[in-house]
């Protein structure tokens, strides 16, 4: 049991990390999106290992099913311009930022190792932990107000997204069909 669980964890963690690395490294955004898909698949596996079955399903549906598809749609819409020439100009400050971030992570990891305290093996979980039944019961009792507020958030987000993506000069755009040249105010 433990060996299988460990192998599953290792596989999921590997997929997550490899996907994350290639999401960041890929030159072409479409490859980035595919790597993000891999990372999301790995995260789903990790969720399953943590007895969060409902969240694993939601993760797949929302991320793999909606977010990545949205990314792919936008990349296709933009076309070849979506992968501009290499990031070379004025890269110094960005590289410095990345190095500082890396150093911060190394120092944090080192300090955490120094503190020690040993590993905390996860206790065996309750049988109903993380199932749709128990999670949904809690979501619709204590989490009902935020859950309903999410719908307002989505409505606002969708309306805002459409308003922003459509641009301001709707009538003129339709008159000048091929390209949007004078959309700058």
């Amino acid at each position, binding site marked *: 049991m433990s060996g299988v669980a460990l192998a599953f*964890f290792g596989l999921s963690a590997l997929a997550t*990390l490899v996907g994350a690395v290639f999401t960041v490294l890929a030159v072409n955004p479409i490859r980035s999106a595919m790597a993000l898909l891999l990372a999301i698949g790995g995260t789903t596996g990790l969720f399953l290992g*943590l007895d969060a079955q409902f969240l694993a399903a939601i993760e797949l549906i929302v991320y793999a099913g909606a977010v990545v598809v949205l990314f792919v749609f936008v990349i296709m819409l*933009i076309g070849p311009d979506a992968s501009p020439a290499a990031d070379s100009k004025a890269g110094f400050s960005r590289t410095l930022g990345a190095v500082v971030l890396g150093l911060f992570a190394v120092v944090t990891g080192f300090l955490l190792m120094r503190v020690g305290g040993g590993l905390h*093996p*996860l206790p065996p979980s309750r049988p109903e*932990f993380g199932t749709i039944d128990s999670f949904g019961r809690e979501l619709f009792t204590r989490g009902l107000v935020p859950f309903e507020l999410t719908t307002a958030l989505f409505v606002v987000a969708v309306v805002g997204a459409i308003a922003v993506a459509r641009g301001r000069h709707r009538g003129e755009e339709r008159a000048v069909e091929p390209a949007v040249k004078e959309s700058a105010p």
Partner: protein
Amino acid sequence: MIPLEYYLAVAGAVFLIGAIGFVVRRNLLIQLMSVELLLNAVNLTLVAFNRARQDDHNGQMFAFFVIAVAAAEAAVGLAIGLAIYRLSRSVRSDEADLLRN
């Protein structure tokens, strides 16, 4: 069983990769994907801590709302990216400098 720290280490690594990607890359789309990685890493820590302490589902509930917000963020972010692209014919975030004097 697998220790809690393994999950936290994976989440920390993913968060670091995403943060570095957000700082280093200049492609707006890839920066947005890095933000998704960051949110995923945080979700992983929330779920892992919830698994370690199973009195309630608070961590999973929080992760659920983070996923919802992440979806809205992706929609709005991509819409802004499209608007910037239509304005400047580029998806490079350093060329979006309309507010510069």
